[in-house]
């Protein structure tokens, strides 16, 4: 079970990378406007996803895991996308119809 090889160097690099990405995302959010709120949040989420991937691949060892564990590790992601996608699609489609404004 001990893989023998030390991954310490990779871990350290990933840690530094994560710090840099955190800095970038804060700087971008404070100083750069991409033109629309939606675009800004997309950029922030893209950076977050990059960070999350790094954590999963290196800190959580996914890079060195078997195919079985990798496939089950990502199994929730399609369902996450499904839930967000369809519910947002539905709500988007009926803006104006399903606006429960009681005032």
């Amino acid at each position, binding site marked *: 079970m001990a893989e023998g090889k030390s991954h310490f160097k990779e871990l350290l690099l990933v840690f530094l990378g*994560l710090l840099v990405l955190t800095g970038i*995302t*804060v700087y971008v959010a404070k100083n750069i406007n991409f033109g629309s709120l939606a675009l800004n*949040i997309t950029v922030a989420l893209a950076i977050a996803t990059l960070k999350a991937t790094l954590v999963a691949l290196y800190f*959580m060892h996914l890079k060195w895991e078997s195919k*079985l*564990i990798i496939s089950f590790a990502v199994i929730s992601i399609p369902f996450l996308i499904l839930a*967000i996608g369809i519910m947002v699609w539905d709500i988007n489609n009926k803006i104006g119809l399903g606006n429960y404004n009681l005032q």
Partner: protein
Amino acid sequence: MSTSTVTNKKLHDGSKWGNPGPMVYDMSKFGMWLFLGTEILLFAMLFTGYAIYYMKMPEDFHNSAKALSTTFGTINTIILIFSSFTVAWAIECIKKNKVKMMNILLVITILCGVAFLVNKYFEYAHEVHIGNLKLANMQWLGGTGRAVAESAVPSMFFFIYFVLTGIHGLHIIIGLGLLTWVLVKGIKGHFHSGWYTPVEIGGLYWHLVDLIWIYLFPLLYLVA
């Protein structure tokens, strides 16, 4: 897995129910990943709620988030990333039989977790002080329902903020409990390069807490 390197008389090889240690390691890791999947889906619905209300009222989200302190958020992000690094390092150490180093790193991780919570406490206190809690319309109803708007313009953003960070904080507490349990076992000398499954499992859970925070940070603090 070789047992020759272990001189300890009480050998913890992780065997359980007739399953050899490596098999337990394999199964536990698999089971933990499945469990992490369920955790992600638990947060997924909150993210879905976030997405929907964001689309309905982007301006509210934009303006409300301004009342949050990015400094608090950034410090907590760095704390969590660092603790995630130390716990991953701890696993590298135990693979090399460096038990003492692993224990030290676990202590650092736990201290980071506590620091996160302390930081969060001050942040919450600040929120209450400047009235964000009122905006979330949080009030004690004692289970009777029948909510009335506390403030003139209740903000969905703050409700989502408090629920997300609250549930995340609960996960931090659970993770701290897990890591403390692992640390106690580590100090007792249960782990060596041939058996460190609980360290790895506890570490995976702690990384998940970090993973969730990585998304919470931009969604809550950086939308302003």
